[in-house]
């Protein structure tokens, strides 16, 4: 049994708005093992960001409201930690990088100080030592001339470089978990490749667990060891990356994989999922994917299916997994690599 760094149990989180209650997260359970990369995948509005922001308690309440659920960090229940207790965790034990590095850096502060701030907050060291650590870290994330860059402002950097600064800031206190919320969405492909490589490399070096939140399945395939697929505020399928990509069990996962253009296919039409995700003001009574699902049965509209483990580490929340349900072979991705191997290329 691997050591679990983080465990979220049955989390319900809502936003109270004038229009009513938005049930953003509706019963999410997941865990992060030590040193692994977990990817949380889903479309916009499925609650993936809310879930991880909630772990670090970054959502103001009100409007946010934790309805129920438990969060364990290294076996300790942090669900009801006070803001003061949380401050000790943030930056030191867990930290986060955001999608847009321009809006998440302080534009009026030199980047070096922004990085050193975290060290000074958490460790009893002198200004000069903190400075040295920050400069060292800037070098590690691949910023050229770290001594000089230390005294620069965020606007003097490009998008990719700012994201490197964010990563330096997040990892400078050597946290156990790094949350990356769409870390490369605002970047170009070549810069994206550099940033993903950097995260991977630092993860190996520091032994940090990484939770990467994204909607890009390509990024997931490149980075993740385990995947949790979210839809309408729930985890619908979770498992090892290879199982999710090549042997998906939930119709949503399968549909998502099929709707991505792939190099091997010649047909001009993509298999798309009809319809749109449900409105989380009034989520459906049964399975939230039922209205868009081509395998939908009567029970799907009546009752929510539980997340059941079907194979080793592979859990699915779908009535098709029920022993009495008809069995379908859901299409997944075909690996170009194994195909090439077979053809001897």
């Amino acid at each position: 049994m691997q050591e679990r760094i983080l465990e979220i149990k049955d989390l319900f989180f809502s936003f109270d708005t004038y229009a009513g209650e938005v049930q953003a997260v509706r019963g999410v359970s997941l865990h992060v093992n030590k040193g692994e990369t977990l990817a949380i995948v889903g479309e916009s509005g499925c609650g993936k960001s809310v879930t991880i922001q909630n772990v670090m308690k970054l959502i103001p309440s009100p409007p946010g409201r934790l309805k129920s659920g438990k969060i364990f960090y290294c076996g300790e229940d942090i669900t009801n930690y006070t803001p003061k207790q949380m401050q000790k965790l943030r930056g030191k034990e867990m930290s986060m990088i955001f999608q847009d590095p321009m809006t998440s850096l302080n534009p009026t502060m030199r980047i070096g100080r922004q990085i050193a701030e975290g060290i000074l907050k958490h460790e009893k060291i002198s200004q000069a030592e903190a400075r040295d650590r920050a400069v060292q870290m800037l070098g590690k994330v691949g910023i050229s001339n770290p001594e000089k860059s230390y005294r620069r402002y965020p606007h003097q950097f490009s998008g990719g470089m700012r994201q490197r600064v964010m990563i330096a800031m997040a990892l400078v206190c050597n946290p156990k978990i790094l949350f990356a919320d769409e870390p490369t969405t605002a970047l170009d492909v070549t810069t994206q490749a550099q940033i993903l490589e950097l995260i991977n490399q630092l993860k190996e070096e520091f032994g940090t667990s990484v939770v990467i939140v994204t909607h890009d399945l390509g990024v997931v395939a490149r980075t993740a060891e385990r995947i949790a697929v979210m839809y309408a505020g729930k985890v619908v399928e979770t498992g090892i990356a290879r199982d999710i990509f090549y042997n998906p069990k939930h119709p949503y996962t399968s549909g998502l994989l099929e709707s991505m253009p792939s190099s091997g296919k010649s047909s001009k039409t993509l298999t798309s999922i009809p319809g749109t995700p449900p409105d989380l003001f009034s989520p459906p009574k049964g399975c939230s994917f039922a209205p868009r699902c081509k395998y939908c049965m009567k029970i799907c509209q009546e009752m929510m299916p539980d997340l059941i483990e079907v194979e080793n580490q592979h859990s699915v929340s779908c009535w098709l997994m029920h022993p009495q349900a008809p069995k379908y072979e859901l299409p997944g991705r075909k690996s170009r690599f194994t195909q090439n191997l077979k053809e001897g290329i």
Partner: protein
Amino acid sequence: MADHLLEVKGLKKYFRLGKNQVLHAVDDVSFYIDEGRTFGLVGESGCGKTTVGRTIIRLYDADDGQVLFDGVDVHKLKGKEYKQLTRKMQMIFQDPYASLDPRKTVGAIIGEGLKIHKLCRTKQEYSERIYELLEIVGLSREHASRFPHEFSGGQRQRVGIARALAVNPKFIVCDEAISALDVSIQAQIINLLVELQEKLKLTYLFIAHDLNVVRHISDDTAVMYLGKIIEKAETNELFDNPMHPYTIGLLAAAPEADPDYEKNRPHMLMSGEVPSPINPAPVCRFASRCPYARPKCMEAEPELKDIGNNHYVACFKAQEGWI
């Protein structure tokens, strides 16, 4: 009747930023598109691909070069003739949230072009046409009286498509038309575009940064870097047999939804970032990042040349066969 529906010859678009500072957004770009085909234009942000699209439909005036549509130079037309042309060329924009007037109903947005070009004689004909357009793009007629904020991103993009189709254009510029949408919705819109192309014999200029999508939808593809087309070929040829070091790096950087392949593919990281497009020197623009660069690359600018198989590439290495 010209050979090609759209032909771009030596197109240049510079933005003057101040004294002695000229941003070369598009620098000597040439290509053509035949009727009923899709031409993909890819590149990273700031490479000038959007400016190409906008200059073609004359949202910007070109600094030099020609855009020939059906043999007529778009940038020389005036008055009535120009108005006639806008009926034949339309554009679909990237951000479906910003490109629809929030104070107009969807019906009025779609119908604006019909009114301007006086395409409907009676009021009834006008509303019938709007209903027809809504149905073509997969919305229903009740949507005509609603406002854009009542729709999701995918639905808004459908409205944008209906607006473009209203005047029966021959040619549509799709500028990152699907990049603001979620994966499952992207597939719906791609399918819609492909279906409309077959039904209405449309020609597309498809501008995008997502390589997998461009590969799926385009017949021919060109790669842009710092205002220039650096490689151009039939889509499968370009993706299977890229010749320019930048194209090779770009393809290697794009992640594929295939974990086994990702784990075992050679990771070739392109170092550095795109240099500034302000006052570029007349040398190969990729030379500063190119792993194969030789002194020659820093002295002269390679031209876009056919190296066989209708595969054009602007690189000394590819043209002269260095190893």
